[in-house]
């Protein structure tokens, strides 16, 4: 009897409660084949609860209390997928996770702009002009996608004052940057202090660090693919973020027929600039502003058909008196747009097409010198492409496609009133590619691809084959080998921190496309559900790399090929990354060991020397510790071993020179014969986030950048005075701890 009563009491006690529980049922499928995926992990974020899919790819999470849930689905070798939903009492919800395979393990890194910021990756980046007054000001640490990407293994930078990316021993110009389908030629604001991309307007960032997919081409090193977005999943969503240097706003929405997004960002430095100028602080820019705008709209044109249009625009203005003898004045702008269509033609065929264009213009000047210098640069690109993907079965997929592009390159250098460089190049190029993916068993994948490209003038034909072999010996482990050849049909020549002076010119008569052969190996191990280890290695050899020879004083009348330095290079290295994406403590620890060298005919007697961005060791740690009640501690540390510099060790002075008005010391030193001091920086931050009256969310970040106050060296200058004493001057980057406060509001 007692047992019966106990059972009844229990039934009374638990019955009504169980009736209130909600349930999530779902299935996990592969995006390529639509096949169910057994063994995939589905976890509730912020709660110690999870499950794995069965043989049919299905899962159930029941007994859930009403509330808001975030779910994450993972499977080794695939990009994680997430869902956020709110469960009512007793509600039963069905979910479908579609996982897309990572194209190259340890090759491609896919992150979203939001995740970069949440992880503190972008928000802790910082930059500063050289004057001490600017350094002392807070607010320079704006969220920045490119600075976040630098935290990843295999990606490095030469200075805090530039957004240039050096990927696996490549120069910045070796990375193709695409926003949707448009190729971009300047990725920096304020001469490179910030990347040109508003984090609120970038949905996905995919960095292909190695043997990139055949749908891309034209670069030796890597591909950075950015997608405009995100749009709100339902209704209208807005965000507003204010800072001392820049502020931004974004608005997005969706409806049954499609979705949209508009965003803008503008520098808000002018009030501070006026205040400092009123106090007669030297070295400040006279003018300094920038803005960028993004827009995107997508419509569903029937079942399986989708059209998207996106636009992007930026403009920069900077007028900076460096000293009494030097004044920089630069204005540059960029526009890009993409119209893209996706069509599902039956169950096994999908077609995509796009029309895209971009234009970059720059007008940069150096005043107050005896010979004023002006450089005007314009690059325009118009392209159209299409591709067709066919999946006849679960073990085979192939894609065929092509893209044609017309480019206009203009560069004009004027010294005083004399034109010293005036080149206008027009190129027409076409590329066709074929790739196939074979899955002979569930654990083996073979990708083969080839891309052929032709460019005129020059009649360059280049074939770029690529191959990849991937095996999953255990559910949580994936190994991969890849090799391929890539070609580059253009070059970017510039100087760090002065991106407005960058010159883009194509291969042409007398200077052929550069070539790179590379091999990579990778390993991805899901140690636990939330802890992942990635190891990678790469080796690449580069032939025919070319860049504008800035030592040519007057290019008038010279043949096109004479304008360039053509050389060779190589790079190799190893990478390791440990990620923890769930739990109280999340973050990334990444380490890169690498080496990259170059060889040019007129430098160091044509022997190899370390490239300017060669660093042996590069360690990044970005951690976030949730303290509860919306509080979190963030920390980032970077150590990078010293990068090369040329340190004069000897000199002589000409005596009889018939052309010199007065004598000068001529320094002698092998190029990059020394290294600067290692780079060390630690940033710490405190974050508070929460809700405001149930209608908005806020986030306040208080950070101290370079909390240890380490004065990292930007570069060193040497000068001989009249008594032949050599004076060495070190230009620091951020020599003092720099506080930063930002406030973000999401509606």
């Amino acid at each position, binding site marked *: 009897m007692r047992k019966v009563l106990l059972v009844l009491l229990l039934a009374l006690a638990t019955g009504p409660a169980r009736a209130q529980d909600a349930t999530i049922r779902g299935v996990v499928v592969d995006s390529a084949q639509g096949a169910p995926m057994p063994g995939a992990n589905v976890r509730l974020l912020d709660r110690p609860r999870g499950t794995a899919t069965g043989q049919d790819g299905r899962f159930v999470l029941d007994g859930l209390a009403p509330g808001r849930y975030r779910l994450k689905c993972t499977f080794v070798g695939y990009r994680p997928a997430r869902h956020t939903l709110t469960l009512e009492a007793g509600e039963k919800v069905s979910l479908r996770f579609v996982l897309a395979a990572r194209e190259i393990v340890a090759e491609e890194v896919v992150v979203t702009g939001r995740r970069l910021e949440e992880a503190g990756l972008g928000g802790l980046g910082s930059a500063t002009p050289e004057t001490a007054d600017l350094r002392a000001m807070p607010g320079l640490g704006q969220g920045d996608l490119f600075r976040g990407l630098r935290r990843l293994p295999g990606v490095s930078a030469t200075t805090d004052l530039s957004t240039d990316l050096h990927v696996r021993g490549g120069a910045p110009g070796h990375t193709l940057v695409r926003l949707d389908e448009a190729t971009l030629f300047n990725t920096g604001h304020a001469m490179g202090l910030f990347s040109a991309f508003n984090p609120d307007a970038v949905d996905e960032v995919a960095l292909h660090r190695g043997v990139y997919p055949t749908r891309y081409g034209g670069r030796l090193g890597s591909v950075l693919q950015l997608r405009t977005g995100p749009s709100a999943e339902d209704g209208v969503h807005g965000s507003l973020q204010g800072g001392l240097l820049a502020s931004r706003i974004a608005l997005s929405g969706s409806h049954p027929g499609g979705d949209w997004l508009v965003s803008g960002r503008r520098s808000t430095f002018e009030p501070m600039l006026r205040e400092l100028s009123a106090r007669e602080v030297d070295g400040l820019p006279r003018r300094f502003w920038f803005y960028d705008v993004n827009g995107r709209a997508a419509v569903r044109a029937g079942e399986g058909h989708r059209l998207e249009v996106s636009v992007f625009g930026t403009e920069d203005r900077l007028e900076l008196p460096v000293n009494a003898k030097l004044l920089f004045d630069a204005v540059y702008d960029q526009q890009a747009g993409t119209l893209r269509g996706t069509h599902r033609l039956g169950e096994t065929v999908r077609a995509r097409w796009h029309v895209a264009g971009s234009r970059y213009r720059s007008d940069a000047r150096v005043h107050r010198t005896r010979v004023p210098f002006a450089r005007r640069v314009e690059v325009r690109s118009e392209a159209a492409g299409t591709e067709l993907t066919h999946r006849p079965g679960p073990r085979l997929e192939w894609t065929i496609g092509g893209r044609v592009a017309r480019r206009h390159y203009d560069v004009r250098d004027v010294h005083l009133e*004399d034109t010293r460089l005036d080149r206008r190049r027009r190129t027409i190029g076409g590329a066709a590619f074929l790739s196939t993916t074979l899955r002979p068993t569930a654990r083996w994948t073979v990708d083969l691809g080839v891309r052929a490209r032709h460019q005129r003038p020059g009649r360059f034909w280049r074939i770029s084959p690529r191959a990849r072999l991937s095996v999953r010996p255990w559910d949580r482990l994936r190994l991969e080998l890849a090799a391929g050849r890539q070609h580059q049909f253009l070059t970017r020549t510039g100087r760090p921190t002065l991106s407005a002076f960058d010159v883009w010119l194509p291969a042409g008569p007398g200077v052929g496309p550069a070539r790179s052969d590379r091999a990579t190996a990778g390993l991805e191990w899901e140690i*636990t559900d939330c802890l992942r280890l990635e190891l990678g290695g790469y080796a690449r050899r580069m032939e025919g790399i070319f860049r504008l020879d800035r030592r040519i004083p007057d290019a008038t009348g010279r043949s096109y090929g004479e304008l360039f330095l053509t050389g060779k290079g190589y790079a190799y290295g190893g990478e390791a990354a440990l990620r923890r994406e769930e739990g109280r403590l999340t973050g990334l620890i990444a380490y890169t060991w690498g080496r990259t060298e170059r060889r040019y005919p007129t*430098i160091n007697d044509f022997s190899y020397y370390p490239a300017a961005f060669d660093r042996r060791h590069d360690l990044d740690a970005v951690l976030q510790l949730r303290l509860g009640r919306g509080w979190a501690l963030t920390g980032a540390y970077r150590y990078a071993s010293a990068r090369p510099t040329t340190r004069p*060790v000897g000199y002589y002075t000409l005596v009889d020179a018939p052309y010199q*008005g007065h004598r000068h010391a*001529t320094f002698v030193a092998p190029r990059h014969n020394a290294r600067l001091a290692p780079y060390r920086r630690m940033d710490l931050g405190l974050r508070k986030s929460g809700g405001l009256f149930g209608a908005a969310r806020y986030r306040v970040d208080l950070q101290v950048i370079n909390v240890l106050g380490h004065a990292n060296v930007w570069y060193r200058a040497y000068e001989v005075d009249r008594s032949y004493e050599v004076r060495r001057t070190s230009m620091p980057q951020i020599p003092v701890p720099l506080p930063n406060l930002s406030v973000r509001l999401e509606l």
Partner: protein
Amino acid sequence: MIESLPALPRPVRTLEHLLSRPLPPALLLALLVGVLPGCDTAGPPTHEPRYVVESYQVAGEPLAPVRLMRTVPVGRSFDARDDGVAGARVRVDLLAEGGSAARTYAYRPDPSTRGRYLPEDPDSVRPFRTYRLRVEIPDAETSLRARTTIPDTFRVLAGAPDTVTYRDGAHVPLPASKSRYPERRAIYLLNTRTAEPSLDRLTPTGRELVAGLESLSAFRDREDEGYTVGSLAGNEWPLTNAASYPSRSAGGRTITYPWEAVLFFGANRIEVHTVGDDLYDFIRTISVQKQGAGPAGYTNVIDHVRGGTGVFGGLARATHRVYVRRPE
């Protein structure tokens, strides 16, 4: 009474467990901060002395002397006499078309200047021919080699103004006969020399240059330290290609001499040089080096001296005297 406490279960220290606690990452960071800097063990580069040659062979003029010197480490003053190298065997070959020596000129030490060598036969330098320098230094068991091709001679033609008013016109026109160089156009180097440099004679450009260095009064105050206005008496203009100047229907080109290169009113001597490849490479790269080391790094000069450094250059030159009047 002390009770014996039951043993606590031994914690399972998985990697995830370790990383889920705040202390180990902090320790890890501390270790990395402290340990990794030790990975960079490369020491500072040291100076290894190099031999330097200096000689300029001018078309149509007598063979020029050759200087032989040594580089000195930075931080030490350089003196061409003290750092001159004596005891070397110096010869210059006039090469035939096949590259063999058609004639060899021996050099002897200048008794008055250590490290300076004078030709024993002051033959004139032949335009459009190639000369080879050979230096043997028995004490160091070292030899240096360099060669230069001499540009063709040219001259400033009649019609060039003898007197000009400052800034009257876009530039000073200097018609010049054609100057040839094998396999390329001529490359010009323009130079002005004034006989009477003084602060009172500075042109507006000259004043800007002085003010750019420092204020005019400060410049005057520091004349004792060697900052004399006389140091501006010789003034050069960047290298220009022949294609930058308009062709003359009668042949040759009209050199457009810029006003920005004129620093003094009064009598000026304009020197127009055309340079060989070796001198062109040297001057264009020393010009970049003189700009200093910015973020892009320090630039070395390109020299054509095997076994050492310096310049064994060929050039041709023409001069023109012009008086620059002050504007009304």
